[in-house]
């Protein structure tokens, strides 16, 4: 791989290493000509989610969102087959932290933490303002279609989980219709947000689940319990709904955000099962894939709490 990276003519490559995390895509850090860079690539062309838009489109969306003022990593090179790296792109390495546990708890982030929820709202507003003309072709999805898609996957996997059954039913009965579709990031949460201890939200990463859809989807997703890391505040563990909504600037009701916040753990729960299935079918033998199946129960406990309060 180092030879292939050297052939990109970005400068002499050194310090190539695979980073932890990133369950669906490989992320490698390296230096080229002294510049800190990241290589993001699809492992062997196998897509775990089936939903991933592909890295070439990801790179195009990052560039489009950047024009709107959203903080994103600079795309340095989009790989072609001739580069011999598979589907991949190279981006600048943005300084900061993605680990939710640290962002929510560490003293180093205490000063910037109170600003984050509002900033998340502002950045989502910027992403959602991206003109749709000129974007690569993207899937369109609303709540009903998301539920249909994830229920089909769940049925196909064959687990019988009564909380999922109750949640699918409750959410399908209340699915809000799509009004004006916008560019939705699709995975805007702790883990995919690069947070700098002083500068705050420095880059929005991992655009593989981007699509056209309901703006409340992104606003609800950042409020899902699974990304709070013990923080007691609803927005990413670090902020309140009011700050998120004020940063966003209007146009979306809190009720709609709360609906999507309830859809969130159901979707994440099915995604955990999908990732586990990659282990069960032999596609990925890693202990990470096996063990993520056991995170499904956290989504069920969150769902029952949300549904109880909503009922």
């Amino acid at each position, binding site marked *: 791989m180092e030879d292939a990276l050297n052939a990109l003519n970005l400068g002499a490559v050194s310090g190539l*290493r*695979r*980073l*932890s*995390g990133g369950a669906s895509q490989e992320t490698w850090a390296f230096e080229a000509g002294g510049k800190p860079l990241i290589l993001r690539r699809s492992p062997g062309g196998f897509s775990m989610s089936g939903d991933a838009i592909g890295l070439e489109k990801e790179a195009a969306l990052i560039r489009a969102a950047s024009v709107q003022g959203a903080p994103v990593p600079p795309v340095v090179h989009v790989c072609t087959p001739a580069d011999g790296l598979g589907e991949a792109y190279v981006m600048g390495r943005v300084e900061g932290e993605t680990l939710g546990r640290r962002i929510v708890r560490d003293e180093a982030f205490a000063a910037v933490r109170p600003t984050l929820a509002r900033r998340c709202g502002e950045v989502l507003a910027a992403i959602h303002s991206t003109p749709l003309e000129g974007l690569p072709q993207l899937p369109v999805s609303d709540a009903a279609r998301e539920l249909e898609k994830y229920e089909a996957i769940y049925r196909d996997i064959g687990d*019988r*989980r*009564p*909380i999922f*059954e*109750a949640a*699918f*039913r*409750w959410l399908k*009965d209340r699915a809000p219709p799509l009004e004006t579709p916008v560019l939705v990031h699709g995975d805007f949460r702790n883990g995919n947000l690069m947070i700098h201890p002083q500068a705050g939200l420095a880059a929005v990463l991992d655009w593989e689940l981007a699509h056209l859809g309901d703006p409340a989807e992104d606003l609800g997703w950042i409020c899902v*319990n699974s990304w*709070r890391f*013990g923080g007691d505040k609803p927005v990413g563990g670090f902020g309140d709904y009011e700050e998120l909504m004020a940063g966003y600037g209007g146009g979306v009701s809190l009720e709609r955000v709360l609906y999507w916040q309830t859809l969130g753990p159901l979707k994440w729960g099915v995604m955990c099962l999908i990732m586990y299935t990659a282990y069960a079918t032999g596609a990925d033998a*890693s*202990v*990470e894939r*096996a*063990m993520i199946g*056991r*995170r499904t*129960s*956290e989504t*069920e*406990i*969150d769902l*029952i*709490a949300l*549904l*109880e309060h909503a*009922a």
Partner: protein
Amino acid sequence: MITSPTSLELIDAVIGFIEQRAAPQLKDRDAFLARVAVNALAAVRREIELGPSAQAAATQRLVELLGHEGDFAGLNAELCDRLAAGELTLKDPAVLAHLKASIVDQVRIDQPNYYGLKAL
């Protein structure tokens, strides 16, 4: 038949080996995977201790809820079908109580420190 070492002792021994001997020599992704491996073994350990009584209690609740005998898988599938059809909902206190008790037991096995457990 099997007296010692117990399965719990074997799990503890492997956790100890990974944490004290293997993990310090690993870095980057392998260090991360070693932590996941320890988490997996710890979940298996809790399942051996807590799983049988949790499933017995769940089966008993299902028998009362659905009004007939059966094994856990069959009763659980019936509950799922009736929830999907909207015949049973969370507005039924017995349904809600069963789902809450069952998922609390499961999360105590999978992730006992998950804060969603405290919220429920």
